């Protein structure tokens, strides 16, 4: 029997249904517009910064020290200071964070202490950076008498990024399948040999991604460093870990808050340099993560 559609039957939306569908379709554009606000803000920020700073950003800007004269002021000591901080901070954070992550995931007895360590890490990750600054001021600068030196600054940044690096490391280690561990143990490898030969290599891309992201955060950190007293006028190259220093975000802060508006282009140019560093880190991390996922 051929199906003859009833003349009354229509599957076109009508009345209430049509209205609901119109609202729903309209909501797509409203939501998209709102989601684009963030992107728009980012674009305006970039354009505004480049418009103000591009004129100042040249080789001389990178090569000269800060100065009382806006048009002669440069970023050299800030770049050197940031480089020192990042290198030392990596040196501190990699062994401690990786060690912590391995201990938690592979060796820690499953008891209350471990739960506490994990909860503690989650909370430390949320502690404001200025509190790390207060800690650095009291412990490294005053108690250990390091002064507002590169060493004190790196130790402070190290403690600040430790939790996020550990958490990233834990996630990377968990991604290594249990079958690999079992295969290794079944061959008579000790737990540590298993970790060293199989778990760590497998987790390495994830760990590196986490470290790079942490470095991006350390490179842009301002409050903690000002807190330990690193905001002096540095018109020399910091040559050892005991030296006073300035860093890129600190110099940007000093120029931004200078009452003389001539210094703003310096701040914008400084931000361009800082953002290039931060974005490079982020792109590197994204590339690593992509490779990790494909494996």
């Amino acid at each position, binding site marked *: 029997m051929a199906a003859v559609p009833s003349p009354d039957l229509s599957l076109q939306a009508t009345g209430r249904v049509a209205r609901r569908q119109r609202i729903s379709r309209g909501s797509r554009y409203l939501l998209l517009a709102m989601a684009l606000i963030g992107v728009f803000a980012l674009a305006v920020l970039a354009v505004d910064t480049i418009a103000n700073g591009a004129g100042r950003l040249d080789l001389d800007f990178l090569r000269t020290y800060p100065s009382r004269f806006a048009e002669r002021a440069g970023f050299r000591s800030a770049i050197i200071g940031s480089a020192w901080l990042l290198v030392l901070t990596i040196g501190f954070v990699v062994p401690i964070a990786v060690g*912590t992550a391995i201990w938690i995931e592979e060796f820690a007895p499953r008891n209350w202490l471990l739960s506490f360590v994990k909860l503690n890490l989650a909370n430390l990750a949320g502690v404001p950076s200025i509190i790390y600054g207060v800690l650095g001021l009291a412990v490294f600068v005053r108690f250990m008498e390091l002064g507002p030196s590169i060493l004190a600054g790196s130790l402070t940044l190290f403690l600040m990024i430790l939790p996020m690096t550990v958490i990233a490391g834990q996630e990377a280690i968990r991604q290594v399948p249990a079958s690999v561990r079992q295969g290794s143990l079944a061959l008579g490898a000790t737990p540590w040999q298993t970790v060293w030969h199989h778990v760590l290599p497998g987790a390495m891309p994830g760990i590196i991604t986490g470290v790079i992201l942490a470095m991006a955060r350390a490179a842009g950190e301002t*409050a903690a460093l000002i807190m330990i007293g690193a905001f002096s006028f540095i018109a020399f190259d910091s040559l050892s870990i005991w030296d006073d220093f300035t860093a890129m975000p600190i110099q940007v802060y000093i120029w931004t808050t200078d009452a003389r508006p001539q210094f703003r282009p310096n701040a914008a140019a400084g931000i361009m340099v800082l953002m290039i560093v931060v974005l490079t880190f982020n792109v590197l991390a994204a590339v690593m993560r992509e490779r990790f996922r494909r494996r």
Partner: protein
Amino acid sequence: MATSPLSGGTGGAADPEGLAASLRQRPFKRLRERAIIWLLGLAGAVSLITTAAIVIVLVGETIPFFSEVSPREFLLEVEWQPLFQPVSFGVWELVAGTLNIVLWSMMIALPIGLASAIYLSEYAHGRTRAILKPMLEALASVPTIVYAYFGLTFISLDILKPIFGSGISVFNALAASIVMAVMLIPTIASISEDAMSAVPRELREGAYGLGATRLEVATRVVFPAALSGVIASVLLAIARVVGETMIVAVLAGSTPNLTLNPLESIQTMTGYMLQVALGDAARGSPEYRSLFAVGLMLFLLTLVFNLAATWFVRRFREVYV
């Protein structure tokens, strides 16, 4: 079969005595293994020591602070005036400053962040999503000093000043709240989106099967199902606002002010702490020690919000993951 190349083959049971010995633990191997695990545990202790050190430092300087300034004054007085006579250490003006920024930044960030999350989770298709999501996440990687600069040169001077004219201070809570909100969008959007994406597909299909539209599914099925994840994202965002320093220090001013009016100049807890660091308060003076008292309060406040967020995340995971 050819002889095994493995030196000292131990296949058989020819020498049971040797076997018994070789099955026994090897002290050196054991010791090395133990030592390594011990070292790893030591690394793990660093984070515990950090927390302990934070508490000791903050409490250690807060106790002498309270011997000079009564806790009554700190908690019950309103005025915060540590630098000028008559000196007064009533913390509420700083708390109000922080609250002011929390209120207005969340007012802006919450709708934008949630809309972004709903769009990404329920509406966006492969391509759009692949572009939009990293763009939003890029907002999270911008250093806060950059936001501060942007807020001062663009939002404050180019936008707000022309709109409000003399009705707004040069330094004001609104500019800080606006850029703070931009900074918060990825925090709210990505955590909420994770929660919404984790809602099982069957739930959505059930609603579609009853003739619900996409918007209805998103707002009446997915959103309520993901609510604890959304709440967690909001709590984490609040914790970030409370702890954020550079944006408020540069934009909001340094005038302790008991107001929630966004157009006025205010000072937050973090703003005050940075101000003390920038000045040269003598070590041991009440002003120097007030840094730690305010720091302790800040620490406890963010701790509460972070713990609450952890609780909500865990609750969400229990339900769906």
